[in-house]
């Protein structure tokens, strides 16, 4: 038996799975290496600065381990209140606006012009980062949570209206047909055929967005749109790392609560 085994080849190479020709493969490897070299060259590191920074980093870690909740407590409470109120109001307003826009962006419910208008609103809202929107709104509405509220509402529209519209486009067409065949009007159609099918998802998505909005509310303060981010920014600017540590811990705690809470409620609703 072993004697006959020698008739078979004794080498085997694993055939390449993705890039099957040798030249493309080597070109790809070469390209990656070249890119990594070029990209690393573009990093201009001031090692002396990094060295000084390490000591600061140490202080920051210490600040994290011994967070100071007390000395800036009032500012923290104010920032947190702004963040939380901003989150809730913007989610509610965002959801209220995204429902009509979402319906308008569903191809199976509305005429083409309405569809294109609504889809463009969604596209603009999704393409721009929250931070960039916040910069503009702060420039227009002045510093403070109102600009933040507008930012998050606008971002919510892009997120929710798109998912809602995609959902409506995927509903069971037979149910809609059945309702339509009873002679129902457009509003009755939406109320009886569409709403029952997408409502649970809409509530789930709103809760999910509530969670996202809280995360974002802690960031947009950096550009002046209020919230806990502004408090954090000040603390870091003044090198008060024990305060920064405290704020970061509070943010993480709330993010965890929001994430866990919203996923639990969503599970419960389904």
């Amino acid at each position, binding site marked *: 038996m072993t004697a*006959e*085994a020698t008739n*078979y*080849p*004794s080498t*085997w190479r*694993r*055939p390449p799975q993705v890039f099957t020709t040798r030249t493309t493969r080597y070109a790809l490897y070469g390209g990656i290496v070249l890119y990594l070299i070029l990209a690393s060259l573009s990093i201009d590191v001031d090692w002396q600065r990094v060295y000084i920074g390490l000591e600061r980093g140490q202080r920051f870690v210490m600040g994290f381990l011994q967070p100071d909740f007390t000395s800036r407590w009032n500012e923290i409470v104010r920032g947190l209140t702004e963040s939380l109120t901003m989150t809730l109001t913007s989610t509610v307003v965002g959801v209220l606006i995204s429902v009509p826009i979402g319906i308008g962006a569903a191809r199976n419910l509305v005429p083409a012009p309405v569809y294109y208008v609504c889809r463009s609103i969604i596209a603009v809202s999704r393409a721009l980062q929250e931070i960039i929107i916040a910069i503009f709104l702060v420039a227009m509405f002045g510093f403070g949570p109102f600009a933040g509220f507008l930012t998050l509402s606008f971002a919510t529209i892009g997120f929710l209206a798109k998912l809602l519209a995609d959902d409506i486009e995927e509903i069971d067409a037979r149910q809609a047909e059945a309702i339509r065949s009873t002679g129902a009007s457009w509003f009755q159609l939406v109320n009886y055929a569409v709403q029952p099918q997408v409502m649970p998802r809409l509530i789930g998505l709103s809760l999910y967005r509530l969670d996202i909005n809280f995360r974002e509310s802690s960031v947009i303060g950096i550009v002046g749109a209020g919230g806990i981010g502004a408090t954090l920014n000040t603390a870091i600017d003044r090198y008060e790392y024990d305060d920064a540590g405290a704020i970061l811990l509070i943010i993480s705690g709330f993010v965890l609560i929001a994430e866990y809470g919203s996923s639990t409620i969503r599970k419960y609703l389904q």
Partner: protein
Amino acid sequence: MLRIEGLTKTYKTGDTALRGVSLEVPTGQILGLIGPSGAGKSTLIRCVNRLVEPSSGSIMLGDIDLAGLNRAELRRQRRRIGMIFQEYALVERLTLMENVLSGRLGYVSFWRSLLRRFPGKDIQRAYQLLDRVGLIDHVDKRADALSGGQRQRVGIARALAQEPELLLVDEPTASLDPKTSRQIMRLLTEICAERDLPAVVNIHDVPLAKQFMQRIVGLRAGEIVFDGPPSDLTESALTTIYGAVDWNTMRKEDEEKQEADAETDRQLAEIA
């Protein structure tokens, strides 16, 4: 030769799957394990190579007690035992060659296996085995591109690549159609005969067991209730193993299966 003595397994949940099973499998014998689901067939097979940890008892393969080994020793001893699975359990995204070569993992270093640099001898053997199971033309295909019967052939080749002294076969045909099932069973029995290899085959299909096994052991509720040649497997023996109700429904299913089988054969004959 495999000698199991007083093997007992109680799961953490408190279910006792095996109650003092003793069994001896001499070299070259193909033994079929039958019994209703939950009788402990799968547990028994998995206790031998300790994919399931036995609670008490001894499992002698040659003169080594597998039940008493530490992890490193167990690894070394597992090389001597080839296993074939119900759902093939191939690494789906690897090629056939890699799957068969993986049978040699116990013999090569981690780095060699990582870089797929297996010794030339192993590669020759893998080619030979793939040829033996009729898949030499598909060496570089990925396992997930094969049909069920072909995958089980790869499973057999992988087990044989270990050059095992014992084959454990867990429901080899449960996911296959009747015709392919018989082809696989025939291949298995031929290969065991070629190598004088003992095998413990866990099988739920009684007619198939009768046709291909040399000896049949019936398990019920974790105890051996039948042990003998297939010819002794009478209606009453089957009733002891399966219980009256179960056996009748099973027989009906088997009749249906045989009819379907005959149907398939007819169709195939027509095509040919």
